[in-house]
């Protein structure tokens, strides 16, 4: 028997994850403006692209002097995991008609994690929509706040915003480094990037590393657990799974 929305565990978790995630739209907005996009371009990325990792990838490549083509390619490649999430959510929620388009737009790490963490189908649906729509609204509001604040700051380097970008990427990567295979993949791709930087135009090293990562996944797929790196970058249910410790992080193998 489903509970009322007020007592719904899915909606409750969705709301708390929406507030936490929406808030860091501030950092995206500020970093996007610092990397050379204007406020409008920044707002459009949050409204239409709406996938944190891909948005940071786009501005990270532009900020490093890369071409818009390289930026769009990096964002597109980083978004591929969303297709896998979409497949999982389609099997859980079966949206139809225009709802399917709306669910596709709010298919991100956080809405997937909130939904799949529930076992009751009604709660899975509530968790998905509350997290997805909640983050969509707050992420866009706080992107705008960050972009306007970043615009007023002046020299981004003086405020350490280039360091903030480094921290943001490490923060996105960190929760995915749960196994030795993941760590090895990250290390090899980091090395490939360093070797490629002097050899090819800015932005392209990211795509070189993507090719290396794709090859590792394609040819090395026998070892390691399935879907490595596809765990969403948040865990709305710390401690709920017996394979996680109290912080929600799985012990390293």
């Amino acid at each position: 028997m489903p509970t009322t929305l007020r007592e719904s565990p899915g909606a409750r978790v969705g709301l708390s994850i929406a507030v936490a995630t929406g808030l860091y739209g501030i950092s995206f907005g500020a970093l996007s403006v610092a990397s050379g996009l204007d406020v409008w371009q920044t707002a459009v990325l949050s409204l239409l692209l709406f996938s944190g990792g891909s948005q940071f990838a786009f501005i990270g490549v532009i900020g490093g002097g890369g071409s818009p083509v390289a930026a769009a390619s990096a964002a597109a490649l980083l978004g591929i995991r969303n297709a896998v999430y979409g497949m999982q959510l389609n099997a859980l929620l079966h949206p139809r008609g225009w709802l399917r388009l709306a669910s596709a737009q709010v298919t991100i790490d956080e809405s997937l994690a909130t939904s799949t963490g529930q076992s009751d189908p009604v709660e899975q649906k509530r968790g998905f929509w509350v997290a997805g729509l909640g983050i969509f609204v707050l992420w866009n509001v706080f992107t705008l706040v960050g972009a306007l604040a970043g615009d007023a700051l002046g020299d981004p380097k003086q405020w350490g915003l280039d360091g903030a970008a480094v921290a943001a990427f490490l923060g996105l990567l960190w929760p995915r480094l749960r196994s030795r295979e993941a760590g090895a993949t990250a290390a090899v791709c980091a090395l490939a990037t360093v070797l490629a930087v002097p050899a090819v135009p800015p932005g392209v090293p990211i795509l070189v590393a993507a090719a290396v990562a794709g090859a590792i996944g394609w040819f090395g797929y026998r070892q390691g657990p399935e879907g490595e790196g596809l765990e969403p970058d948040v865990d709305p249910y710390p401690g709920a799974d017996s394979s996680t410790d109290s912080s929600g992080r799985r012990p390293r193998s």
Partner: protein
Amino acid sequence: MTLWFWIIVACVVAFLTKLLGYLVPRKWLTNARVARVAGTLTIGLLAALTVANTVSTGQHLVLDSRLGALVAAAIALWLRAPFLLVVVAGAAAAAGLRLLGLP
């Protein structure tokens, strides 16, 4: 204008990628190899973006205050700080090291 064009391309591609998951037969994406490539791509791209933003300036490898930001962020993540605090730690480290005269 080119930047606008590629922003829109990236947005359209991102949406179609998400929608694809809702449209293709389930079997296709539950293929272990496809799922694994999607996973390693995510890890590889984020690792590359972290490193490129830390040590590259154009086509040159440079060690400057951004390395301090990387260390500060790693410490914050190790201490299980929330994302926003990690970003602030990175900014503070880079700005602080520059105040001390580092490049």
